[in-house]
């Protein structure tokens, strides 16, 4: 019997992002579609940044996770459009990022609301570019710790 699409979404929630393993590829909004096409499962993925080196790893991890669950006929396709946006990161994903020490994207202020460590709002931009394409470097003026901010895209 075919597993339901809902069940498959739940399986994919267990596939971590290779760069930020506390969040899943579903939390990040990288998995765009899951659908049965007859006896073949079609999964649509989208890259975060054009040059993100994690893209091919994610595609492989998704395929491995589904094959491990017994899916035999599988088509994993990467689509550019509509382009990925940080607005697609789930509320659960945002909470996990914050817990991990990465301030989640804020489309209103376009900067972190507060330091993820001491919660002070006395924060300053160091650079719009950080340890991965999706992050910027900020510093807290109160506890003086540098921290990552998941920048809006």
């Amino acid at each position, binding site marked *: 019997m075919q597993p339901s699409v809902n069940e498959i979404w739940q399986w994919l929630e267990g596939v971590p992002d290779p760069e930020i393993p506390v969040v899943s590829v579903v939390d990040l909004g990288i998995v765009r579609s899951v659908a049965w096409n007859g006896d073949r499962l079609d999964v649509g993925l989208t890259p975060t940044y*054009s040059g993100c080196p994690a893209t091919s790893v994610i595609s492989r991890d998704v395929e491995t996770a589904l094959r491990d669950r017994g899916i035999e006929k599988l088509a994993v396709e990467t689509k*550019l*459009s509509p*382009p990925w946006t940080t607005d697609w990161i789930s509320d659960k994903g945002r909470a996990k990022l914050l817990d991990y020490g990465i301030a989640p994207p804020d489309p209103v202020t376009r900067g972190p609301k507060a330091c993820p460590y001491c919660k002070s709002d006395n924060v300053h931009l160091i650079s719009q*570019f950080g340890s991965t*394409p999706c992050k910027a*470097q900020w510093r807290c003026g109160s506890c003086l710790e540098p921290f990552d901010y998941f920048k809006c895209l």
Partner: protein
Amino acid sequence: MSGDLKFQFLCRMGDNALVLGHRLSEWCGHAPMLEEDIATANTALDLIGQATNWLTLAADVEGAGRKADDLAMLRDAWDFRNVLLVEQPNGDFGQTITRQMLFDQWHLLMLQALETSTFEPVAEIAAKSVKEVTYHAERSSDLAIRLGDGTQESRGKMQAALDLLYPYCGEMLKSDEVDAALADAGIAPRLEKLAPDYHAAIGDVLDAATLTAPTHGFIQTGGKSGRMHSEHLGHMLCVMQNLQRSYPGAQW
């Protein structure tokens, strides 16, 4: 619209991103401060990702069985279609930032216009790239202002870089028969139409940076048509393509 004209255009977009991406990667581990090293490498990564998208589409349109990697690694200098500006050497950090600012401001306007291309795959790549390039343009313009309106030494280096590189900007705004055909088909904007916004954007940055663009009006062309690349491109490709040329088909 012949497939060859589309192919030429897609190679122009892809080669601009690829060549500038490679140039920026030459700074990796050598930039003047850690934050700028990271920012430069990230910009390189975005551009090489964009180049992959453009050249994949170019190879599809060509339909000759070549792949994006074949176009990147196995063409010679005369088959590259990038503008001359992006192949110019890094020079000092001021020269790299000046080249970047002059290109990013054009790149941003070009991609914004391409978002409404009548050729859907072009619109899709543009919509993806424009978000990344917005960050590139913000950084290079901000740094150009800080270094221009900086110390006597940094200002001198920025003005020298501008004098050297400004003549290469004209090629990005001057249509040839490929650009004209693409504009007629609604696939790409008419380049001359980007000029007012480009000059306004550059003018704002240069004013704030206390720098003065040369007024002689001379422009250097020949990159995007492949007629005459500068000597620098061949040297760059020797390094970039070395592995695939020495060990054809090598993978890791």
